[in-house]
């Protein structure tokens, strides 16, 4: 059984069937890519996984425990972190503060009254935060206010915020969209490095096939809310159903 088991999930928005009978199993310590044309329901699926949306029916098990009906913060505390399609960061805070907050969430849980000690004296947290900023090549930008970062940097910051929590399952929603080629390659290297260093499962939504084929061990193709095929990267290239789903939208 996989670390993540999605069974028979349906979600409608009015008349639109955004997810139709989605079954998906993601094996532990693999990188699983979910691809499909725009509007296929990829982000909606992630929304269900992190508790942003409650599906009309179906079940979602993470490590044998149901995710449905839990608050987003509880799901995160179970070990699921997500990078959003449009970066969700603390725009008014500095880069360093952005990374400190997930460190506190990881160490102290969902709530801890920690009102007197100064953040300056949290040496452990500082070390962890600096290390992750080094990993994403943003250490020299740590005093910048996050809103002033470039789009690519915002993505990398958000990724750092997720990685620093050492999640068991990392969900990435188009992590390289809007990034320059060099940054995209850096991101691929970073994710590979993380993967080598520790046990982590990744589900990655991506349009850039270079990224997909560099990282993914399994690929699921989603079209109109339903998984069409699940295959290894070798077998997915030139798969007739995949070509059909994309209709030339992206070169597979």
């Amino acid at each position, binding site marked *: 059984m996989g670390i993540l088991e999605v069974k028979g999930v349906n979600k409608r928005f009015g008349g639109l069937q955004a997810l139709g009978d989605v079954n998906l199993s993601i094996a532990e310590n693999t990188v699983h890519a979910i691809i499909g044309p725009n509007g296929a329901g990829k982000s909606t699926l992630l929304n269900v996984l992190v508790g942003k949306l409650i599906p009309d029916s179906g079940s979602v098990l993470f490590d044998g425990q149901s995710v449905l009906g839990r608050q987003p913060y509880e799901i995160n505390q179970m070990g699921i*972190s997500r990078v959003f399609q449009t970066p969700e960061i603390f725009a008014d805070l500095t880069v360093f503060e952005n990374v400190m907050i997930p460190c506190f969430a990881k160490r102290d849980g969902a709530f801890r009254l920690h009102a007197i000690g100064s*953040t300056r004296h949290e040496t452990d947290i500082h070390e962890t935060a600096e290390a992750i900023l080094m990993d994403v090549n943003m250490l020299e930008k740590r*005093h910048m206010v996050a809103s002033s970062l470039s789009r690519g940097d915002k993505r990398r910051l958000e990724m750092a915020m997720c990685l620093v929590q050492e999640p068991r399952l990392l969900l990435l929603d188009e992590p390289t969209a809007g990034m320059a080629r060099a940054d995209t390659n850096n991101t691929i290297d970073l994710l590979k490095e993380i993967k080598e260093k520790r046990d982590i499962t990744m589900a990655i939504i991506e349009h850039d096939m270079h990224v997909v084929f560099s990282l993914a061990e399994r690929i699921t193709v989603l079209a109109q809310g339903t998984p069409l095929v699940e295959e290894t990267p070798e077998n997915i290239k030139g798969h007739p159903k995949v070509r059909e789903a994309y209709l030339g939208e992206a070169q597979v």
Partner: protein
Amino acid sequence: MLGMNGKDTTLFIVVCLMVLLAPILLNPFPTGSAFAQFNAGYPALLQRFVIFGILVIGFNILFGLTGYLSFGHAAFLGVGSFAAVWMFKLLSYNIVPAIVLSVIVAGLFSVVIGYVSLRRSGIYFSILTLAFAQMMYSIAYSDLVGKVIGTPITNGETGLQVYNDDPQILLGDGPKTPHLFGLEMNSSFTWDVGGWSFVFQNGYYLAGILMIASFYLAIRIFRSPFGLVLRSIKSNQNRLNYTGISTRPYMLTAFVISGMYAGLAGGLLAAMDPLTGAERMFWTASGEIVIMSILGGVGTLIGPILGAGVIKYMENIVSTINDNVVHGWVAFMPDGLENFFVAIIHPFIGKGWHLTLGLVFMAVVIFLPGGLVELGQRIGAKFRRKKSPESAATSAEKGTV
């Protein structure tokens, strides 16, 4: 020092000195001079500066850090005052039980009101707090609780005060006016020097010390992990939820802390003058707290205190200037011009001080969104640029003043 960084320590020391020396610094004009009327260094006003300072320091922990705008904070102030006066009526004029109870009672009220109001955010949160406060005002004004249990609790329109036949079981032959273990709040020491006369009052210094303590606590909260989470709530609550932090308990804690600050301020108002009424909880009083914070600089440490100072100054000084006083200042002008000048100034002084305040407030909101603190920063930046052009570039670590 004391767990604060260098900049905060400097600010803290400046505030301490200001509180200590205010009776002198705010009395720059000799008694009897034409401008003596602008002196603010008399106890009744100084007390208000520091007590409302406490109130807005607490309000700023909620509004400044989390961005949640409570429109009912005066209710906690009012509750604190009622609790304190009741302690005077039941026990004695010692202010310790009075102030302790006012903080506790305000804390309890804010747990309940916060718990309900924090189910919503944005404008709905503001409206809920406003509704609660107005409900409490109505209950206090009509003394609904008193009517139900058959003995006055808030004493309705008359207001609550201490009577000779009150129990005061611990009074003995202690002072008949609020005191701290015998140290009477309203007694003072006057220092006459040259044409000046400086008044140092016990009550002011007690409230001043409590404001310094409140300010210190606020600095620590601002710089703590808790404060960081509160600021991130203001910045992006969504991200916080997906980062594994439950915002509700953080918000409720911030709300209760700021409610307790308001309760302390209410208790101190009663300790300076042992009577109170429902009007302290009226919505305009809550609005005044919001205006103080915005005028001074929301989310900065010192801003709200400055805002409280400016508003209390205008309320007490500008409101006392009348046409005769202005005539006195411009007597050197030819008669026609003098009358014209007074006619122009007239709407802005005396009862018209609200108009002046309104204009000042608009000017600040439009030209200085960061409040008076931003004004200070801009002036400071100009000076620094003149001294050394390169130092202006190192303002990356701006931080909150």
